[in-house]
């Protein structure tokens, strides 16, 4: 009975917000049996590269392309990424640390609560704070550089080359060393941005919001898929979307 009600609710939900897809794209979703295993957390993150498809769940970092998880004992990580060598790096209890052989090795304590991390070029990490006005740092495992402190909390960040592109509630900005801060797209009164991804070949930016994923190219913002959103990643010429509210992982592929 409970399942019936839940399924009715889900069908109503999906009826209320139909998924719309831009032309020349196909949308695939993960098998239900697989995504049902995930203990979803609302601020989920996605990492896709040669080291696999990883997702941040409530108590672990789960690998989805093969059965696997990073932590032996459940722990609540707030953010994660993978080194080029395939080692997960996570923020747990406001500490940055590597995960090796299923054990979190706590490293430096972050200067404030609420920090997130994202992979940078040449095995570096970018550390930024989506919750408060705070500096963006670049860390290579040993040395640290402070990049900048925007005047709004950084909602999402993605590295491209030796620069970064980041989103605040005011817009999407690009920042490179020894160049002035540049505005890519002003976004006042826009939906909150949850995630950014960049196609490294074309520099096309993908913007994830809770219910829509946009493509930003040549100053034109086009909705690629609406009705789903959340954490996004670009890899293998595909756009990977983890929607925690729909509890599903989607793949958008050009036809």
């Amino acid at each position, binding site marked *: 009975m409970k399942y019936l009600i839940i399924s009715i609710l889900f069908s109503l939900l999906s009826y209320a917000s139909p*998924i719309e*897809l831009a*032309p*020349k794209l196909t949308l*695939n979703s*993960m*098998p239900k049996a*697989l995504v049902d295993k995930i203990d979803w957390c609302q601020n989920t993150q996605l990492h896709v590269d*040669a*080291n696999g498809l990883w997702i941040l769940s409530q108590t672990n970092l*789960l690998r989805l392309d093969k*059965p*696997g*998880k*990073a932590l032996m004992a459940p722990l609540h990580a707030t953010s994660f990424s993978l*080194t080029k060598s*395939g080692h997960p790096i996570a923020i747990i209890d406001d500490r940055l*640390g*590597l995960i*090796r*052989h*299923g054990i979190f090795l*706590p*490293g*430096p304590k972050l*200067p404030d609560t609420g920090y997130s991390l994202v992979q940078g070029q*040449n*095995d570096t990490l970018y550390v930024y704070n989506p919750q408060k*006005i705070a500096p963006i740092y670049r860390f*290579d*495992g*040993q*040395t*640290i*550089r*402070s990049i*900048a*402190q925007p*005047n709004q909390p950084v909602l999402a960040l993605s590295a491209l*080359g*030796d620069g970064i592109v980041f989103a605040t509630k005011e817009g999407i900005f*690009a920042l*490179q*060393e*020894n*160049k*002035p*801060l*540049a*505005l*890519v797209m002003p976004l*006042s009164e826009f939906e909150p941005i949850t995630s950014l991804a960049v196609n490294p*070949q*074309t*520099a*096309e930016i993908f913007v994830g919001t809770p219910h829509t994923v946009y493509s930003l190219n*040549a100053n*034109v913002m*086009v909705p690629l898929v609406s009705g789903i959103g959340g954490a996004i990643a670009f890899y293998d010429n595909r756009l990977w979307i983890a929607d925690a509210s729909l509890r599903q992982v989607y793949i958008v592929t*050009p036809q």
Partner: protein
Amino acid sequence: MKRFIFCLSLWLASQTLDAESALQQLYDAGGSPPEVPMPQLKTQPYNSGSSSTAPSQTPRSTSPKPSRAPSPAATVGATVFGALLESVLFDAPSNEPDPETLRQQEEQQRQAQEAAKRQEQEAQKQHQNLMHSFKSVPVVTTTTETTTPSSGLSFKTAQTLKETKIDTSSDEAMRESASRPFDGGASHTALPATWKPYPLGKTPVSFSKPSILCQNKTCTWPKVTPLNATLPKATVRHTPINLSQIGIPTAPNPSMLLKTILTSKEQDATQFYVILNRLSYLGKEIGKELVTSIAMKLLESTPVGEKIALMKEVHDLATNDMEDANKVALWLGSTQIDQPPEITSLAEDAKPFLIRGISASESFEKLSELISDTNDVFDMSAKFSDIIKNMP
């Protein structure tokens, strides 16, 4: 005693493996210390139910031991550990277990390992089946294909890109390819061309100098100066622009000239001008509809039907060829009504209409005939012709 010795040795070994050094060594080694099995992490299957704990622990226990040079603490630890182990071994020779029991234990262990391996393989197979059974999601595909200049296209161009794959043929190749940037390092060249970012201010942003984050167990996060960039404010126009107040340009403007023609008899000049201006920006089809309805209204009340028809013609011209539109508009505004300009962009049958429409102003009857003859050019409704016919 044994337990104590074991704990002591573990503690000593852990001294060499604290968290910071693990991070540092990882990065020092270009992201891949040699003992690490790189892409294949020893991970625990999460989807094999409650039985998953046992099989995953077995392979982890057989993972290779670190092979880097031991620190002094580790050397001391190993010496102590060795000495203690020796004493323990020599102290209790009588407690040596029966070889038969040992053999049985080994056999049990081997069987357990095999069972675990089988289970893991089954889980893997099941997972692969699941991955292959990816379902296409039914979507409401939008039909506005023409208005998506970027999405499909640039997404598509990326199909030709070469993926940087991790070479797993050897440890050396693996390390080498792992340290290569994913994007090949050339992505930033595409950046300025694609984004056309708008620089906020002229002051370049300099990142802080690299400094060691953690030294002697204390971590110092460098200070940073806030970015003081003010965003350009988007302006929203609330006051309508009075188009009639815009100065007359030196080059003749068809709209301005038409306005002059039409206002010679019409009082409400501004209204006409605004209508004309709007018409010139509307799409062809909408324009036709509007012109028809406006023309009908005007023809019902005013004697300027003839010129409304011309207005439509000039408007069509303007959408086709601005140069020709200028010519016609100039001609309409001039007194040389018998010398029509040569136009190139309109259909041939529009020309006689233009000429005769002006010169044959004797009767509206004739005009209506002309209009019905050239219906394909004008696409005017029969109602339009009727109204003209019924005019005085």
